[in-house]
């Protein structure tokens, strides 16, 4: 807490411009105090290894906080995809600290809602282990949200992902809900991601808007020989709000092989990587014996066609 005496001294220092060293020290101290009240100083950050994004986030994604990823959940899978990539990165980050990361709790929207159900094979392809995933499957979004602070309070979880689908609630409800989840997550240091349509009012640490990337390198035709090069996920990311940071807008890709975010800057002439297997030997990357193993699954001629 800043008492009156300190404030008085600060006023005196500001008048005395000659003693700039002491003044700077004092201001630094003051910033730290305010920061600790805000919760900015003691927070743990996870760098996303994309320089402009990390600087916009002032170092990285804050762990033990509530983040909101907004987008059209029913029209495409990019919001879930970006959340999966973040969670995958978070699991790797936590595992790197020594102890194994705990399970991930995902509270998906009802599969009747149009967003589809979580598909383990696709999650595994993005690098997130479905075996470490606990799915809380309840059709009522309000009950799901009400149970969220109970989940977020649990120690030992890697991350919590919750989808609020089509909930028409007052901004007051959201402020209170997010504050409650925030307090629970701070105590247990569990990072919470909320997925859904954009909300007007919220008190989240960061607010992201995720859309499919129409970046030239993503949508342009490239004479690509391997599926790997063609189908790297990419998102149009708009960081609308970040506590202690500043907004950001850009196209972020995901490297499947290394499990890293990449920044899509310019149209690169993508050629086949040196290590890529010859197309004649693989079909969707499967070797002939893998194909014969899936005997009921007859595949046609490998085709990587260009339409339009």
């Amino acid at each position, binding site marked *: 807490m800043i008492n009156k005496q300190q404030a008085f001294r600060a006023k005196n220092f500001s008048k005395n411009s000659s003693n700039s060293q002491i003044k700077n020290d004092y201001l630094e101290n003051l910033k730290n105090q305010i920061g600790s009240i805000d919760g900015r100083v003691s927070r743990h950050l996870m760098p996303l290894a994309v320089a402009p994004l990390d600087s916009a986030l002032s170092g990285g994604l804050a762990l033990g906080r509530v983040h909101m990823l907004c987008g059209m959940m029913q029209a495409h899978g990019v919001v879930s995809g970006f959340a999966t990539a973040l969670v995958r990165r978070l699991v790797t980050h936590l595992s790197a600290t020594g102890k*194994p990361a705990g399970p991930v709790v995902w509270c998906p929207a009802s599969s009747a809602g149009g967003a589809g159900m979580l598909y383990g*094979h*696709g999650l595994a392809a993005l690098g997130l282990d479905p075996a470490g995933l606990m799915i809380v499957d309840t059709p009522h979004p309000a009950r799901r949200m009400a149970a969220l602070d109970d989940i977020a309070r649990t120690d030992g979880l890697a991350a919590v992902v919750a989808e609020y689908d089509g909930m028409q609630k007052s901004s007051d409800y959201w402020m209170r809900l997010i504050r409650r989840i925030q307090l629970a997550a701070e105590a247990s240091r569990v990072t919470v991601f909320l997925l859904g349509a954009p909300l007007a009012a919220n008190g989240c640490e960061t607010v992201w808007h995720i859309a499919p990337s129409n970046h030239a390198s993503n949508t342009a035709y490239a004479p690509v020989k391997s599926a790997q090069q063609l189908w790297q996920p990419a998102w149009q990311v708009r960081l609308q709000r970040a506590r202690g940071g500043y907004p950001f807008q850009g196209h972020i890709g995901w490297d499947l092989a290394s499990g890293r975010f990449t920044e899509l800057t310019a149209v690169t002439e993508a050629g086949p990587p040196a290590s890529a297997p010859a197309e004649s030997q693989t079909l969707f990357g499967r070797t002939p014996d893998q194909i014969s193993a899936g005997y009921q699954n007859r595949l046609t001629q490998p085709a990587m066609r260009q339409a339009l």
Partner: protein
Amino acid sequence: MAVTYRHILYICFPYLAAARMHRHGVASVHPMVFVESVKGADRVVACCPLARRRGLGAGMRLADARALCPTVHSYSTDLASDHADLHKLALWARRYSPLTGVDEPANGIWIDVAGAEHLFGGVRGLMADCARRLRQSGLHLRFAAAPTCGAAWALAHYARPGIHILPQHDAMPAAAAQPVAPPHTRMRARMRASMRQILAPLPLAALRIETDTESALQRAGLQVIGDIMAMPRAPLATRFGNDLLRRLDQAFGDVQESFCPLAPPQPMIVSRNFAEPVAAASDIVAMISYLADEMARLLYHTGMAARRLELGWQLVDGGRHCHHIHLSRPSRQAALFHRLLAGLSDRINPEFGIETGWMQAHDCSPLAPVDQPLQHMATSADSTAGENYASLIDRLVARLGYGSVVHLKPQANWQPEAAQQTMLAELTMPAASVAAAGWLAPTLSTTAPPRPIRLLAHPHPIDVVALLPDHPPAQFIWQRRTHKIIKASGPERIAPPWWTAPAGSKSRDYFRVQDHHGACFWLYRDGLPERGETAAWFLHGFFA
């Protein structure tokens, strides 16, 4: 009025082991015997009705049995299962009388039906009911009822089936001044006569005597019970031992004999009765908390842990309600019970008041008592995380309903809908290893067919512009929005499993496509145009 007579129903199951094998799916086309190694030789201890008809029986050597019937299948005898089956049958027989017991060496059960037979229309009705129910469940049985245990045993094993000797009801006035004589002296002479008459032609083995004694008696020319009934007792005792006379007296009721009645399993239940009906919310919370504490204490003292708790309450008008709570693993922690039951008080509608509340533990299993400090010392940080995880599952299941917390399990199936299954969450901490789990993408690279991260449970029909026969779509219309396709890969053909799929199931050609906005979709064409099938297009999933 006190029952002053005894009436024992004895049921013997000669083919108990065979019936168990049939229950477990062993076909009854071959005769089977159950053997036990006695003095180095395999001897038959039990057989099935088919083997019995072929002349096989207990006591025979397996080699002899094979010689008699070459197709016989032999199994080693499983006494523990036999005993468990008998135990279950004896517990089931408590529907007829509270006194039932197991006669383990002879594969039989005792039921003391005295005073209870009128509920089933007399002894005959009771025996018919019992036989009908047991035969319906595929059991062969021999049974008899008699006033003494010994006589019932003898008749069940050696007389024609279903025989019974009716006991003579005690006609002595209850208010008689003289002391009541013991039952065996009160047994009427007429009944003794009828018992003598019925038991006399039975072989001596019916007296449950040792095999040595029986063969010694046979060597002396004594074959049936009638032979020794009239003989002077002293020489018999001198020559063949007291055991013979004791068994004889037991059969005729001159010496009291009883079986050890089975104690029924005690339900794990605690209850609270109120002097006045309670309806206040605080009282209900207090009742739940009291019951949870008592239940935890009861479980601790009996060394058990419950997987399911039933909280019940009875209203003033007699209406009974209950609520079940499922646990992810057996537990007896009061703190856990409190937490799971915390939200329940709001759901109880006391109406005009609750008279009684109870809590019953179901699916109990033994749990060794663990010293709390030791447990803490033994656990590492990981296992405390596991504890938290398991209790989180419990809390969520209690809050959101049974089946609301699931895991994804891969299935060895190419059909996308069937390739993953949701299983109820277990308490085990999942092992973080993609490779071992059997998912289609074992590594981060795309050495696997593409699979979406969200799969539509029911594929959406879409309007597609595509070249035949197997070109990817050029554009598709979904939810009145046109998606122009700029990139596509495929097709990946997934045929329905012909051995299970219903007739008319078509092969699907899956395409991964990207529209001009950059969103990726998983589409498929149902039906192959080159086979003359009408092709319809569907949207099945979304890629990241």
